[in-house]
């Protein structure tokens, strides 16, 4: 049986909404690095690897602002954009959103789930599990 190319499969609409597009990810990565920037700054930054129209980047940054990922303040005639959350905070939020989506979607039906994704695990238990996962198999026999 040949391995299916997962990237070519159509993603479910809901899952798509939960992630940033490739261009949005690039813009966010640059803003996390620079901490604040104007649209022009990002266009120039991106120009080192790819050429994008000013209006394209502006549209993306406005969309990210509307999604609550960027904050902006007006300085003269231009907007200066800043990330609303650090990269780690964003990852944590994303993880939480995914989990909530899973619960909302599957709820009662997924009765016997391998449910690690759905639960609270404090640092002590995480560390204990990591040690167990890394344990030399010879010790356990």
């Amino acid at each position, binding site marked *: 049986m040949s391995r299916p190319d997962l990237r070519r499969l159509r993603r479910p609409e809901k899952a798509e909404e939960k992630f940033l597009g490739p261009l949005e990810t690039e813009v966010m990565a640059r803003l996390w690095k620079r901490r604040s920037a104007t649209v022009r700054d990002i266009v120039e930054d991106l120009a080192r690897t790819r050429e994008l129209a000013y209006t394209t980047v502006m549209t993306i940054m406005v969309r990210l602002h509307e999604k609550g990922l960027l904050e902006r303040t007006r300085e003269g005639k231009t907007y200066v954009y800043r990330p609303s959350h650090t990269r780690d905070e964003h990852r944590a939020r994303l993880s939480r959103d995914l989990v*909530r989506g899973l619960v909302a979607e599957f709820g009662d039906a997924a*009765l016997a789930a*391998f449910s690690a994704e759905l639960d609270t695990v404090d640092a002590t238990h995480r560390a204990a599990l990591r040690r*167990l996962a890394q344990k030399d198999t010879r010790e356990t026999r």
Partner: protein
Amino acid sequence: MKRADRVFTIMLGLALASSAILLALLLTLVPRVEQLVGRGAEDTADVVAAGVLLLAVCGISLGLLTLLRQLVATAVLIRKLVAQKIALPPSVVTAATGLDLHGRIDVVFDERPFSFCYWFLRPRICLSTALVERLDSDELRAVLYHERYHLRQRDPLRQIVARYFAAGLYVVPVVDELLSFHTLQKEIEADQEAVRASGDVRSLASALYKLLPDADDVSLGLLVPVSSLSVTEARIEQLVVGRPLPIALSPVSVVLSGGALVAAAVLVAVKGGASVVFETLPPLYAVPGLLVGPASLLFAAAIDGGLHQLRPLTQRLFAQT
């Protein structure tokens, strides 16, 4: 018999005995309520009968609603799974070799790593593509051992039956607590089976670790925490220490459940205030002692059990916001 099975048997026995007592109470009170509708409330016994009957109607509705909700959720889930199903990746085929799961595994395209067992009479295992991609062969096999345990035990069917009773018998809140313990114990026994079949704990621990959410504070309580531990924390403790978990029943629930059943039995015995014995006793003792007192106990248990039942609903609402 394993511990989870023992708990399930106790829960089912308690649920059937409670159902019998409450059904007897319902049958006792129905004629009285028919009279009440015809001529209006004349004494305390009429009011008690109407109140208790209301509790019974709530219980029957809750039970049926829970059953319906679970069936609808399962139908919706299956429709979604079918739409996102892909051919089994070779890694899954390899991991499932020799596990006697032919034709019982579905892989669905999803960005979220998850696996679960679903459907009732002939359960199936569902794995997401994100889970398959994230785990190596040994870890995947450990997850399949875990799910195979649920599949062989027909746990989805057990859960739907147990949830129906827990919701319908909300005036006996200890049934709901036994269900929570049973759910957790099932997870632990599935883990133990996976460790036993894998030959060591590493593969399962590693799979569990790779599936932990990035955020430390994700708490939705889809499954029910035991004391201060979440279900996953309890599973980790079990993997690390291997000590059996104590059954943590709340004393309030136990007392209220016992009280509610004794109260229901008393109300049946005095036929809701229509028995000869009741009528020969002085009303000063009989009305509070054999009518209002037992009915109050039933109401107190109903409030506690009702709050138990509302908890998943509020959590689900929280999850959607």
